[in-house]
C-alpha cells in the first residue's frame, strides 16, 4: 500500500483546498484528513468540498493535529493519502444507547483471524463513548488492535466533527479499518500522589462519594494535603487539571479520569468511574510525562518489531490536556516521540479530547491525559 502524507496551513479555505489538490497524486484512492477544529474556514464550504470530491475521504476536526514533531492548533490539515481504498464505517447516534451501538457494530466482522485493526475517531463530547468502547471490545475485542481519540473543540460545545464524503456529523464514531495489525503503545506518566480511596458512590462520570464522604471534600483535602496548590472551587479546573484521578489496575498504569468540574458534592469526570473501584490522586511532572510518551513510542516500536509487517507511519493520539499541562515543553514530547521512531516513519496524529486504546492488559478503554502511539 503506497502512501504519503503532508500538512497544509491556511486560513483561506479555497487556498487550503487548492494546495491540498495540488499535492494529491493521480494514484490516490483514499484520504484520511485531520483538521483543526479552531479554524477560519466556512464549514458549509468544507462540507461542500467533501461532498463533491471524487476521492473517498474520511476524518475529523480536533483540538490540534500533529505532523512530525510539530503540533498545529489552528487553520491546518494533515492529509494521509492512500493508493488503496480505505475501509471505513460510521457508527452514528451514539447517544441512542448501547443497543443501538451494538446493532451497528455487530455488522462488522473481521475478515480473517487477524481481528479488527482500526483507527477510531469519535465525537469526544458524545454521550455513551464508553458504551461504544464496551460494545466494540465485547464484539470485536478478541485480537483487536485499535487506537483512536476524541474529536471536537476546546470550547466543549458538541458540534459536527466527524466527516466522510456524506457530510460532517456529531455524536458518531468513525472506524477506519486497516488490513494489518497495529502496534499500540500506551502510557501517561502521571504518578500516584495520594490514596487509595474507595469509590463508594458513583453514577457514570459523576463521582459522588469517596470513602463514604463527599467526593469533592476528599479530593480537596488531598490536594491541600499534597501542598503544592489549594483547590478553589470557583476556579476548579485551573488546579484540577494538574490532579487527575487514577483507577487502579493490576500490573498496569492507573486508568486516568480527569475531574473537570464539580456538581454539588460530586466530581464530574471525563470518563466513567466505576463504583467500588480503588482510586488515587495523581500528579504530573513534566519530565515523567515526556518520558511516558517516549515509553509509549518504544512500546509500539517493540511490538512492531515482533510482527512481520512493516509499519508505514506512526499515528499519535495525544491528549490536548497534556499540551495545556506541559505548555511550552509539549514540543519536547513530540520530539521524543519522533526520535524514538525508526527513521522511515513519519509521525502524524491528533491532539484529542480523550483517547482510545487497547492496552495489552485489559479491555479497550476510553483514556484521559494519555499518549497513545500506534504504528500503522
Amino acid at each position, binding site marked *: 500500500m503506497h502512501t504519503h502524507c503532508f500538512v497544509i496551513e491556511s486560513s483561506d479555505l479555497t487556498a487550503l483546498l487548492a494546495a491540498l489538490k495540488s499535492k494529491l497524486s493521480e494514484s490516490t484512492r483514499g484520504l484520511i484528513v485531520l483538521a483543526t477544529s479552531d479554524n477560519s474556514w466556512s464549514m458549509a464550504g468544507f462540507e461542500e468540498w467533501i461532498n463533491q470530491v471524487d476521492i473517498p475521504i474520511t476524518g475529523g476536526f480536533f483540538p490540534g493535529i500533529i505532523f512530525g514533531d510539530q503540533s498545529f492548533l489552528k487553520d491546518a490539515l494533515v492529509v494521509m493519502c492512500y493508493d488503496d481504498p480505505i475501509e471505513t464505517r460510521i457508527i452514528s447516534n451514539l447517544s441512542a444507547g448501547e443497543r443501538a451501538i451494538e446493532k451497528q457494530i455487530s455488522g462488522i466482522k473481521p475478515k480473517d483471524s487477524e481481528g479488527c485493526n482500526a483507527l477510531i475517531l469519535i465525537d469526544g463530547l458524545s454521550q455513551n463513548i464508553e458504551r461504544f468502547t464496551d460494545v466494540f471490545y465485547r464484539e470485536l*475485542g*478478541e485480537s483487536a488492535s485499535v487506537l483512536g481519540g476524541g474529536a471536537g473543540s476546546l470550547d466543549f460545545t458538541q458540534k459536527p466533527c466527524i466527516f466522510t464524503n456524506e457530510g460532517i456529523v456529531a455524536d458518531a464514531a468513525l472506524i477506519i479499518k486497516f488490513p494489518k495489525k497495529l502496534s499500540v503503545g500506551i502510557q501517561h506518566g502521571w504518578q500516584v500522589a495520594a490514596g*487509595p480511596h*474507595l469509590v463508594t458512590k458513583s453514577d457514570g462520570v459523576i463521582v459522588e462519594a469517596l470513602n463514604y464522604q463527599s467526593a469533592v471534600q476528599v479530593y480537596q483535602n488531598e490536594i491541600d494535603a499534597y501542598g503544592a496548590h489549594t483547590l478553589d472551587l470557583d476556579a476548579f479546573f485551573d488546579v484540577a487539571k494538574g490532579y487527575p484521578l487514577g483507577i487502579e*489496575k*493490576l500490573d498496569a498504569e492507573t486508568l486516568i479520569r480527569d475531574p473537570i468540574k464539580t456538581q454539588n458534592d460530586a466530581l464530574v469526570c471525563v470518563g466513567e468511574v466505576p463504583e467500588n473501584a*480503588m482510586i488515587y490522586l495523581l500528579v504530573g511532572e513534566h519530565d515523567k510525562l515526556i518520558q511516558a510518551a517516549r515509553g509509549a513510542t518504544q512500546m509500539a516500536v517493540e511490538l512492531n518489531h515482533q510482527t512481520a509487517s512493516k509499519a508505514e507511519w506512526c499515528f499519535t493520539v495525544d491528549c490536548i490536556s497534556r499540551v495545556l499541562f506541559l505548555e511550552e515543553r509539549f514540543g519536547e514530547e513530540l520530539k521524543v516521540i519522533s526520535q524514538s521512531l525508526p527513521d522511515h516513519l513519519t509521525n502524524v496524529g491528533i491532539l484529542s479530547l480523550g483517547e482510545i486504546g487497547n492496552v495489552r*492488559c*485489559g*479491555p479497550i478503554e476510553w483514556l484521559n491525559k494519555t499518549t497513545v502511539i500506534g504504528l500503522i
Partner: protein
Amino acid sequence: MQPIQLISIQHELAMAISLDYHLEPMLQKFSKTCSRRLGLSGITWYLKPQIFDSGTIRPNHDDTPELYLSVPKSERFARTIPNDQRAYWESEGRHAHRLELTDIGYCVLWRDTKAIEATVIAALAPIAERLSRGIVAIAEHEALINANNMLTETRARLEFQLHHDDLTGALNRTGLVRDLQTTLKLATGESEEAFGSILFLDLDRFKWVNDSFGHHIGDQLLLAVTQVLRLVADEQDTIARLSGDEFVMLLGPIWNSEALAAARGLQLGTRINERFNMPMQVGKHQFQISASIGVKTYQCGKDTATGVLRDADIAMYQSKRHRKNRTVLFREDMATDLNDRLLMERELRNTISAGEGFTMRYQGQQNAKGQLVGAEALVRWQHPTKGELLPKEFITMAEEIGLMWELGSWIVKQSLYDIGYALETGVPKHFKRVSINISPLQIEQRNFVPWLNECLEKFAVPAERICLELTEQGFVRQIEHISKTIRELNALGVEVAIDDFGKGYSSLAYLQEFPVSVVKIDKNFIRGVDTDNRARKLSQNILNLCHTLGLKATAEGVETLGEMAILQAQGFDQFQGFLFSKPEPLDELIARYRD
C-alpha cells in the same frame, strides 16, 4: 501486592456480582470489571446446562459445563481449553487461569504479557464462591421470571383469544362490546359532547362462496375483506368480526357533532362499497363481493353498546333489503321495518308448520306448434293481510329461518297431488310433465331420491311426469353429490332442468358436467330478441350450444308475439311466458288447453 490492594480487588469484584438480575448481562458486567481490574484480555464462562432447567443445582451431578459466554466474543478462547482440570496453562502466548465455580462450572481468565500473581488468584477464591451463589440465585430468579413470563404470556394469549377473532385477528364480538363500552364511557363527564359512529357490515353472497367453494376459500375471502377494511380505515379505527360475514368498524369518538360522525361513517361505508366494486382475488378465484353497510352514530355518555350495535344492524338490514353494496344511515323508522320483518318471519313459520296458507299455481309450457307440453309449478303464499305473495317474497326468508326443507316438501307433495289428480281427470294429448322448483337445500339431502320416489308412489305419479328445476346456484354446491343425485333421478325417470340459465353464476361447464335434459334460458336472454340484433344472436348461440350438447332448450318469459316468432324460427323446443299462460290452478290451465 499489598493487602489493601487484594482487599480492594475482592471488594470491587464482589460488588460487581450483583450488578444485574439477568445472568448474561451480569456476567458481561462482571467480566468488564474483572478485565479492567485484573488486566485481562478476556474471560470465558463454562456453566452446567442443568442450572438453566429450573435454576436448581444438584451437587456433584455429572453434568459437563458448556461454553456459556465469552467476553469478548472469541472462538479462540473456546478452542484452547485443555481436557484436564489444570488451574493454569499457556496458550498462543496467553496465560489462562481456571477458576472453579462451585458445583456449577468454571471460568477462565485470559491474560497477555504475564500470569496473574498467585496471591491474587488465591484472593479470587472467595469471589468465585460468591459468584457461584450469585449465578445460582440469578438462574433461579430467571427461572421464576421465565415461569412468570410464560404465565403472563398465556394470560395475555387467552385474553387476546377472548377478545379477538382467530381467523382475522380482528376483535370479536366480546372484544368489540368491551371496546365500545369503554368508548361510550370514555368521555362521560369529561367533555361536553363527543360523537362517533359504527359501521355494521354484512357481506352479500358470502354464504354462496362458502357453500360453493368451501370454507377454506371462504376463510381466505374473509381475510382479504379484513385487509381491505384495514386499508380503508384510519389507524385509530377499530375493526371487529362478529360472526361469519359480519364485520363492525368503530370510529371515533372524535367529533363534536352527530352530523360529522354520521358523515364520516357514510363516507367510509361508501369507500368500502366502492372498493368492493373491484373484483377480489382469492387464490386462483376472483370474487365480486359486495357489502351491505349500516351506520349508526353514538354519543359518549348517552348511548349503550347494545343499542348502538342493534341500530347499526337494523340499518345494515335495510341496506341489504333494498339494494346490495350500499351504505345506509340508521333512522328511527327502520326499527319499525325490522319489527315488520320479524312479524313476517313468525307468520311464515306458523304457516309452514300448519301446512296451510300456501297454494300452487301452474304456468303452461308449449311447443312450437302451440301445444301444451308441460307446466311449471309455482308456489304462492296467501298472506292474511298482504294478499298473495310471490316466491321471491318469502323463499329466501324460509331459507334464512331454516324451514326450506319443510316448505319444499310441501311444494313437492302438493304438486304431485295436483299432477295425480290431473292425470286421473285427463290431460291434453301432448302434455308430458310438470316442472317443480327444487331448492339446493332439498337436493343436497342424502335421502332425497328415495324420499321423492316414495312421494311419487304415494301420489301415484309416474316419474316421467315430473321435471325438477334447479337453479345454477344449486349446481355449484357439492358438485359430485349433486351430479350423482341427478343420475339417480334420471335412472328413476325424472327429468332435470337447469332453471334461469344465465341469470346468476353462469358456467357453461355445468351444461356438460351434469346429466340434465333441459335448459331453461332466463328471460334476460329472451327479452328483445325481436328488436335487438345482439340479443337475437346471443339467444341463437345459446340454443345452438344446448342442441350441440343434446339438451332441450326452453325459452322463459316469452311475452310478445314478435319474440315468439323469432324464438320459434331459431328452433327453441319449448316456450313459457305470459304470452300463453299466467300462473293459474292446474285444472284451469288444462281445461283451457283442452277447450
